[in-house]
């Protein structure tokens, strides 16, 4: 069942810039430029792209606080902008850099308020709160005012607040931003639980690709308001023409190695770096090098997903 559906969704903004003393120039900016995709119930999708790619604009349209300029948009059977209040009961939203919690009051008070806002039946409220408290280790924090929580604790508190009303969809906007390694791991573990056990559909934007590697079966890369990649994380390597690196240590410093199927990208004394296509085997290259050069040691480095995506962003910018 398709839970989130976008058909040729566009959103442009008019920006006025000063041009001369009184004259102002109008300029159209296409933040989202023809998005078409669907997300099925139960999926966990990573939504990534460089700053200004249109990620936040998409999330704003999906929550109904921004109307698309054109195109069709449905979330859980609802047109978000037209029925924002009804949609709000079916979605949960967490912004890593904002909080929905009541700043000066104990965490518990924010949850009690959520119970009233979303009219969560008592039994369900208690069960959901207990589950969140256990999984997110919030037990000792419920009576602490939110302003006294650390960033990691507050983030966990926000996650619980977004899930008390059993939303079908959870939007996460950089949920691990600014967190330390331990807190990040805990948040990811919780999200995996929510996605697999509860079957909650998750749409996640992040700049931390480890979030994606550990949580998302599907990645969408957008840039300049368009989807430039939609598929599995592994497929991203192929699409990004990623390269592996062969690092060789020779007996002594010398000129750059010349070998078929690879090119030298860096030389540092006796050590040289050779790049070759990720899908090619390293064996023939190693054999050729060992045959003609005094080889002491070698290692093969897998491409980092960061580099793949960085290259993808750069290509879109040029094209």
């Amino acid at each position, binding site marked *: 069942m398709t839970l989130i559906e976008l058909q040729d969704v566009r959103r442009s903004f008019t920006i006025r810039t000063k041009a001369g003393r009184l004259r102002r120039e109008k300029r159209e900016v296409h933040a989202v430029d023809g998005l078409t995709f669907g997300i099925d119930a139960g999926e966990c999708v990573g939504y990534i792209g460089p700053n200004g790619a249109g990620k936040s604009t998409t999330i704003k349209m999906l929550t109904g*606080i*921004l109307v698309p300029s054109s195109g069709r948009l449905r979330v859980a059977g609802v047109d978000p902008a*037209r029925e924002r209040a009804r949609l709000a009961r079916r979605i949960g939203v967490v912004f890593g850099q*904002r909080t*929905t919690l*009541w700043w000066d009051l104990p965490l518990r*008070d924010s949850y009690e*308020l959520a119970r009233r806002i979303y009219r969560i039946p008592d039994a369900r409220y208690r069960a959901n709160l207990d589950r969140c408290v256990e999984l997110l280790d919030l037990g000792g924090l419920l009576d602490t005012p939110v302003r006294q929580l650390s960033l990691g604790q507050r983030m966990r508190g926000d996650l619980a607040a977004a899930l008390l009303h059993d939303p*079908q969809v959870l939007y996460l906007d950089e949920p691990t931003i600014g967190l330390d390694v331990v807190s990040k791991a805990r948040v990811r573990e919780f999200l995996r639980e929510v996605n697999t056990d509860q079957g909650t559909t998750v749409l996640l934007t992040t700049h931390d690709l480890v979030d994606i590697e550990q949580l998302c079966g599907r990645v969408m890369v957008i840039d300049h308001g368009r989807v430039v990649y939609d598929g599995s994380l592994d497929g991203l390597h192929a699409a990004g023409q990623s390269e592996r690196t062969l690092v060789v240590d020779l007996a002594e410093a010398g000129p750059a190695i010349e070998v078929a199927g690879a090119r030298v990208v860096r030389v540092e004394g006796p050590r040289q770096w050779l790049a070759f296509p990720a899908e090619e085997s390293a064996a023939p290259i190693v054999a050729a090098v060992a045959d003609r050069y005094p080889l002491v040691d070698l290692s093969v480095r897998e491409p980092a997903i960061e580099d793949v995506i960085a290259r993808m962003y750069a290509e879109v910018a040029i094209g």
Partner: protein
Amino acid sequence: MDTSVEAAADTSAQLRPERGEPGPDGRPEGAGRQDIGRQDAGRRQAGRLYLAIAQGAFRRYSTYRAATVAGAVTNTVFGFILAYTFLALWQARPGLGGYDSVQAVTYIWISQSLLVTVAVWGGGFQDEVQERFRTGDIAIDLYRPVDFQGWWLATDLGRAAFHLFARGVLPTLAGALAFSLTLPADPLVWAVFLLAVLLAVVVSFGLRFLVSLTGFWLHDSEGIRAVMLVVAMFFSGMLLPIGLFPGWLGELAHVLPWAALIQIPTDILLERRSGFAVLTGLGFQLLWAVLLLAAGRAAQLLATRKVVVQGG
């Protein structure tokens, strides 16, 4: 058009049993479908929600004890300064504006006790909304399924309830101990006074809400707020009772909404308004409260449409 939306919504109705319930703002979501009994239940739930919001606001303000005590002391100090000033003034001009000197001093202490409760200087939810515009958190308020105006009105009523107690009792007691005041013996007068204070808070909220909403266009309502502070100080009767303003200025001050903030509640407590005049005073407050809330609602509609259609 509508039917397609309804049809699409129906597919998810099995998953979400609460479909068709009235929204917390009292407006039914699946208009014209549910029976009156369910509407009543919805209203009760909405009432409980707003009560919870107001209680939360009350508790929030009560967490800052030192600030509250400091504020109440400030009100008391100003009460002394102004009370002596008024005594000197009334010695020179006895019966000025129809107040005798005891009434004039009582006026000072009551107005100091009400100053923060009815937020003559602005503030309360306004500070928070302004901050939310600055940080962009205002987006959160828009996707929450609670009416924006109702949410902030509830928080402001909770705040006012706290301030009436925390910022009103100390100045009133200090004034009563140090000066001879005229306070009513009839509990009914006190009850009507409290009602007038409630209406004053709503009128004040209506004004401040409109100022806050300018943030949707101006990004920062600080400038307008500064102007409003001066206007409110003058026309609420906070500096001088409105009755002392000469000629047309007095007439104007009597019909502007700020008269509802300080002048009317204080005159009711001083029993300068009694019988039918109490009713016209409350009626005046109610009229402005309704007008300002309606204007706020219209402005909110425009503001959200602007944000939703043009982008924030």
